[in-house]
């Protein structure tokens, strides 16, 4: 693939989205079917109006065919996001979120906005959250040193965002550090 240098070391959002598509999500099917066997597991039975858990890609597929209602996850609600947003802005730490919340929420907002309550508000809340978190992760990168960088509760999309810079910066720092090291240690690092 011809990609800019910065992207080669990391994945594209679409790829992350693809990965996130494997996450399970509740749907209320509008058709009746027995269990179906897929590579990732057995799903169903589909007995409306009972809920059932299926992979996100499957839910999206059904939704596009108008064969189901997607039950939004608990965290994709205005109250939850609002509360988290205020936490996010108040505290230094990242608040805990599902690892792939950004991808899942994007998919749901794109595909199943009619199943969400007030999708516009959700969208703006998510955007606010993203900005708050992005600012923090930039801030966090200042703490980067040659040994480690600890940012708990970072989500996949954010991780992906800082990965190119982070990887290279760390690389450089390690190299710089190794220059300062005693020779025998430097050699060890070299060998590594």
């Amino acid at each position, binding site marked *: 693939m011809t990609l800019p240098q910065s992207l080669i070391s990391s994945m594209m959002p679409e790829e992350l989205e693809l990965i996130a598509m494997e996450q399970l999500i509740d749907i209320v099917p509008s*058709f009746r079917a027995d269990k179906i066997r897929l590579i990732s597991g057995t799903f169903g039975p589909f007995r409306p109006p009972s809920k059932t858990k299926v992979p996100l890609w499957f839910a999206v597929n059904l939704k596009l065919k108008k064969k189901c209602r997607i039950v939004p996850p608990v965290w994709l609600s205005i109250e939850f996001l609002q509360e988290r947003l205020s936490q996010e802005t108040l505290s230094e730490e990242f608040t805990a979120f599902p690892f792939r919340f950004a991808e899942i929420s994007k998919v749901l907002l794109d595909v199943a906005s009619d199943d969400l309550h007030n999708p516009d508000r959700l969208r703006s809340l998510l955007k606010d959250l993203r900005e708050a978190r992005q600012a923090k992760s930039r801030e966090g990168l200042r703490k980067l040193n040659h040994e480690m960088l600890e940012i708990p509760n970072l989500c996949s999309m954010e991780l992906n965002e800082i990965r190119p810079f982070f990887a290279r910066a760390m690389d450089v720092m390690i190299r710089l550090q190794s220059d300062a090291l005693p020779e025998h240690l430097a050699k060890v690092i070299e060998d590594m």
Partner: protein
Amino acid sequence: MHRITVNSAHAESGYTCLAFSRDGSKIYTGGAEGYVRIWKTELGDTQEPDVAAEGEEGITSIATSFECWLSGSLDACVRVYDADKSTMRGLVTRTVAVPVRCVAVDPKGQRVAVASDELEIRIIDLNNTSDIQKLEGHRKGVRKVTWHPSGTILTSSGCDGDIIAWDVPAGGESKRIETVTGFLPIADPESTEHMYDSSCVWHPSGNYFLVATRTHEIVSISRETWQKSLTFSSDVVTGAITALAVSQNGTYLASATAAGIFIWSTMTRKVLFQPHYIRYTPGANFSLASHVAFSPTENLLAWTDADATLTRWSEPIHPSFPDPIKSHLSSTTAPKPMRKNTDILGLDDESVQKAPQEGMDDNYGIDDDDWIIDDIGLLDNPDKEPRMDGIHAKEMVSVTKAQPAFQPASTPMVNKKRYLAYNMIGVIEVTDQDTHNVVNVEFHDRSTRMSSHFQDVNKCDMASLGERGALYACPEEGDHPAQIMYKPYSAWGSSGEWDYSLPPGENVVALAAGGSSPSKTLRTKSPDGDIEGNGNVIVATSPGYIRFFSGGGVQQYIWNLAVDVVSMVAQREWVFIIHRDGGTSLDGCQNLSYSLIAFDTFNILQTGRLPVPRGATLKWIGITEEGAPAIYDSNGLLSILDRFRRPTQARWVPLLETTSLARRQGKDESYWPVGISGALLMCIILKGREEYPGFPRPLIQEIEVQMPIYSLNEPQGRIEERVMREKVYINFLRDGLGGELNEDVPRRELNIDKELIQLIQLTCKNEQLQKALDLVTLLHNISSFDLAMKVAEFYHLAGLKIKIQLMKQDRIQQEGFQDIYGEKELLKELAPVSAPRRPHLHSVKPHLEPFSSSTTVRKSLAPAIPIVPSFTSSDDVDIEHTPTETTDPPVTWDAFPNDTLATAECVEPNKKRKDSDAFENDNQSASKKRILSTTETTSNVTLINPFAKKNHNNPFSRPVPTKSTEATRSNSFFEKIEEPRSKNGARKTKQKTATRQTTLFDLASGSGAEKKSGVTTKIQNNVSGILESPVLPGPNMQPTNVTLPPVIDDQNLNSSIDCPADDDIEWPESPPRISKKLET
């Protein structure tokens, strides 16, 4: 004639008070300017009233007695005047320069209570105004005082929100009875709220008083308990209540709010009347009434408002309603007792017991405050209103209002939208378009049925969504008769629809559409689909008929039930009808019954009372997927009809108490059931005080049901609940199958067994051995017994293990018994009086006798206490010995040729040994193995049974090729698991390997020998219960049958038993039931 007269009473607008003279001929109004005007009731709006102009500041209160009337004023004076005149007699009292807030004369006209901004209340004798009693107790100024009809209790309302009831006997010592808090608002004298009526208005019965609360409700507070008993609230009555009055006989209550004046019935607690001209729209200009009063002698309501106008409303109570005054009071006293008696008879109809004498006493004693209990109990449906007559008769009447008929899961019209039906099939939504309704039918499962919508010019108000069609009904309106319409799904808009017009005067009360669920989609027309029919239609109509139609429109049956039908719901096989047999009962029970009627035969399958407790109403009814009727009441209890398929056996079991749901903690939410699917309650969760779901259609939530049994917080309780509930459901399934078995039942039984084994493990751990044994009796699969035994073994409970063993044998026999006689469980349970089965007594008794001779049964169940073995420690020897004690094999074994299992198991050790060749190096502690193996030996020996030989003619047995290790597996599912594993040679867990018996090779190895040598000491040290075990199985054995060389028994010794850690138990597919083959 209904008339309203308005007088401008005072010059200065502001707080204006009002009082009727005791004979009702005069009305006194006191204004903010300090004047009191005396109006003649019979004159209209053009009269010129007398004026008493002594007051220097605003008049706050007027009270009337027989010979005088009194006014209280902001100028700190209480003045007394001659009755009906404006001539002042003098001052009664004067407060310490604080405003007088209320004066109240007692019913006898002897004493006056004066409330002021002082902290004390004065009770002054009117004949001797220097005789003053002071009641101290309020922490702030007193707003109102009122007298109990008896004249011995005074209630006072303070600015601090307290209501204090005082006992003030005439001439006696006064004392505080009770302080009632939490109802009145805390009101500063400066606040507007202070002007609002806070008086405790006593009902003439004296049994309770009414008070306007800070939450803008009117509550009644019982004199017995001083607790709130009932609430008067209505949607139309909003805002602060500014004045309150009770009619002379207590039938009516008048309240004034910003929304106007309302007259309530004190019994039904419903708003009855409102003056026409002030039926204001909210926000309209209406000056707040500051005082409202019923005339004591005529049908007249008067009030004064903040604009200082006096309004008189004559005939507020429509003549068709009971009179607000004592209807029988006349000027002559002679006929009184007679009439009283008739009243009393009327009362008796309501079961309010009242002694005639007492009524008369009341009457003569206090003439004007006499009262009569309304006799409209028969007219309105009396609501639960605890009443007490005078001082005696204490019969409490709490009659629940009969609930009106309803369609399950329908909602009222809100914002021109409503749900007519909402169930597990779909939703019928209705939008009101003024000239017509738009009916929108949507299904959860769109693959089977096609959603549709149509215009409904008849404005149907009832509907039922069935499996095969939707049924609608519209009410009679004008010359348009009531109608029912059925629209089958298979033929939307085509010839399948039919309708009937009901004869005039007949209306639909309840309806239901049922029918078998479609086997294929109804969206497309299929030629053979019509054979399945269009379902069934049931309609209950107002004459008390229940009409049955076929899905095609054939009138099939009519049932004259002749009682009120409350609701009904249908499903595949039957219709579930709720009806009220007769009226509500006196104890507050609604007296609801149910009937379950099959479509195909019109047989009444079940009938009985509905468990709706006192005071509760039925909120929802439904039929679960299994076909079981279910109800949900206003207490939030979901119940289901257990054993509904067994004639006369049905009973209700509580399935879920939604009030105690964990998810509800700290939240204000309620549940609106839609259906029950297996162990899930499908419902819509309503937030706050919503009663119905709104639009857009909310998502159906699932709540797991949980029977309300004890200790649900502990794992044991939870498992017990699951087992109990699952058994109910399995019974549904079994009953539905009618003796056949499908795959589902054994699978679910196996699941229960899993739970039970977990529970047995927990009980064993806690040494609750009898409990464990009880649980064992609940096991379904024979093979589960083996697992239970392993559990017992793991906890070194050898005695328990042997008992399980016995139970297992008994179960095997019993199953054979069942099948020989072709008895289905169903029939057995229906057998009229079957004695409880005592498993061990008849079949296993011979085994038990030797037990008791050696050691008692209980002892083996006792906790392990090391005792020195009294017999030789070598197990080999034991086994050699015991056979000598053996009696003949038990007769019962002969009776039933079903010792297959035993047969199979007797080959088991061989197989096990072969299987486990690969796993020699168990790293379990030698001692444990020893001990466990002791019992293992016994069980093995037990199984080596002479009758094993018979297996070739045993009909139960699988065709077992005799010595092939692969094929001779018993049906025990342990073998089933182990077999594939051992074949693979995969060693998944250590515990699995531990289950294998070690082999000959192993024995030959040094470790085996070592272990053997350890036996004696370990046994001594460890388990006493085990010591008995070698002796126990004796009778089961035949010496000739111990074919295995002693070495093999040694191996058994070394065999180690699996420790059934609860999460480690692997469960195979359920084995086929052995006994099924007997039919051949």
